[in-house]
């Protein structure tokens, strides 16, 4: 295998991993605060369509990115209000959010089907991407670099800052956190909004970078893979990075192997593999830890402040 090919493959892997990493890190923070939002797919679609619509209308993809984050965060706000303020069931509300996002994105997107958009360009000048090695370093979309920075930032935030400590405390024991005087609901609201914004950004990665277009259900179920990856990563940002790239690697290598003329496994088995792997990982860490998966203790449970 020559170096050019290797670089090309690595770039494809990064492309496949980036949106999952961004959406997954958002959901990771949400879950760390003790909230389970199954509406990632819906928020991604809202982000994808908003980013596309705004980029096309204004001509500036960057404005599209910002608008996408705001729109998806607004959708997340509906979710937050229902599950945090009104203490509605998180699983049901998250599913409803996905139905909502699928429908709303199709309505908004109807006039944008079949047209092209200004896409988000590269971060570095073209002169820097002349050789394969330089391309590997400088030739990615800005969002690829952003996702890596985001991984470090989320890690640093959760493990090294006071705010991160509070967020984890809220996720582990909301009543204790509340007793100490932490604003449980506020923390969770902020986490959910952040998760929404990241899902929106991830959605945009599809509509403005990877496959610059809009069509209904553009993200084709990637939001659910992001949720699976959070579990696969056992709620750790570093493992989230590894998981997203591992997923990208499996997908890319499968296609590369087929393109090179090898058909090794049934395609259905490969499609099921990420989910099987997630279950296995869940089982293994649970077995190793006896009764704990590193899952935030309050995940999915409502909180009501008492007096």
């Amino acid at each position, binding site marked *: 295998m020559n170096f050019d090919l290797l670089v090309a493959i690595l770039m494809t892997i990064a492309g496949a991993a980036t949106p999952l990493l961004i959406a997954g890190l958002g959901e990771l923070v949400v879950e760390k605060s003790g909230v389970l939002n199954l509406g990632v797919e819906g928020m991604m679609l809202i982000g994808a369509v908003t980013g596309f619509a705004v980029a096309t209308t204004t001509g500036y993809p960057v404005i599209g990115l910002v608008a996408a984050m705001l729109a998806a965060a607004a959708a997340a706000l509906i979710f937050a209000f229902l599950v945090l303020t009104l203490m509605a069931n998180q699983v049901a509300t998250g599913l409803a959010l996905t*139905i909502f996002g699928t429908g709303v994105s199709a309505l908004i997107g109807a006039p944008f089907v079949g047209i092209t958009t200004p896409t988000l360009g590269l971060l570095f000048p073209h002169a820097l991407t002349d050789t394969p090695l330089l391309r590997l370093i400088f030739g990615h979309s800005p969002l690829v670099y952003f996702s890596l920075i985001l991984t470090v930032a989320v890690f640093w935030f959760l493990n090294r800052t006071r705010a991160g400590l509070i967020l984890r405390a809220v996720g582990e024991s909301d009543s204790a956190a509340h007793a100490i005087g932490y604003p449980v609901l506020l923390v969770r609201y902020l986490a959910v909004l952040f998760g929404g914004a990241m899902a929106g950004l991830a959605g945009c990665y599809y509509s403005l970078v990877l496959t610059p277009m809009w069509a209904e259900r553009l993200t084709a179920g990637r939001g659910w893979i992001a949720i699976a990856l959070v579990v696969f990563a056992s709620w750790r940002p570093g493992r989230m990075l590894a998981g997203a790239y591992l997923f990208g690697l499996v997908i890319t290598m499968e296609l590369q192997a087929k393109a090179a003329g090898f058909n090794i496994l049934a395609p259905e088995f490969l499609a099921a593999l990420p989910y099987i792997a997630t279950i296995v990982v869940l089982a293994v860490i649970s077995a190793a830890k006896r009764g704990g998966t590193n899952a935030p203790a309050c995940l999915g449970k409502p909180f009501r402040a008492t007096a």
Partner: protein
Amino acid sequence: MSLVKLEPRRQQSRAMAIAAPVIAVALTLFAGALLFTLLGHDGLAAVNEIFVKPLFNPYRWQDLLVKASPLVMIATGLAIGFRANVWNIGAEGQYVLGGLAGTGVALATLNMSGGWILPVMLVCGVLGGMVWAAIPALLKTKLGVNEILSSLMLNYVAIQLLYYLMRGPWKDPMGFNFPQTAMFSSDQTLPIVVPGTLIHLGIPLAFAIALTAFGVMTRTITGFQMQVEGLAPKAAAFGGFGAASTVWIAMLAGGGLAGLAGIVEASGPFGQMVPQFPTGYGYTAIIVAFLGRLNPLGIVVAGLVLALTYVGGESAQTTIGLPSAATGVFQAMMLFFLLATDILVRYRVVSGRSAPVAEPRSSSGEAKPGESKAVTA
């Protein structure tokens, strides 16, 4: 702090349990009319088309029953688990596995005849769903794996298994190489119980199951055990009820009924197995379970209401050209409103200046009467 406060009710309000969904539906109709108007349609006509008109057309009643019955069946099974705080969201996969298990029997008996074939298919369907649900149950009871996540992941595995079987081993050899099985024989097809209609055996079955579940939940020891486990695990442990057995009962009930719904759909309305078999019933049923307030009788109503939005949404597409996405948004709004008004059942809205809350409680996951919705009947 604020002018209004929420105060937990000692007992859920029965009046509110009925009033809340009505309020939610009223809000949905209002917001829906507004939304459709904004989209450039006649808002009131659209709401009328989706929500009212199908109710006055006897043909549509059959459609509603056919569409609602699998949802009711699955949601009833899920509600049993949800009441005990066992969060099985893998019904979609269990539905597929039930359908596949029954289909396996059907394909093996394609050249045989006899009244025994259909019952065997149904039993295998139930077992198929149970086997798939047993995986998260086992992981939960032996290793403490969160069942929400494991059951969700298994949905995708089930669907890929279906695709594999349709593309390969189970493909109809006479079917022009299309990925689907042969049509089932008449001995493998669910009978129509009301001649001249679409009412197949699965429909009375679904309603009978809901009624039975209602009885079991409210009148038997097991029902009590499951409910106590949901309400207060510690109390349940003192009473000698095991948490593990609760998980098993909850998962197997959910999986078994989802599997039954799967084979009923396959041997009834489908009449064969196709790759398009899973259409999200397993997820929709979660919503139905909550709309029905985890009460089997409520679930019957909720299943019919949801079926109404599908059937009415299709009519609205043809009569006023409302895009199907608008129906999706309408459904989502209804769910949002129903989930939002649910709080009225569990809490009282009081003025901020009134006396402090009488019954403080923690929400650390120990006891959550709010979520498990004790039935007071």
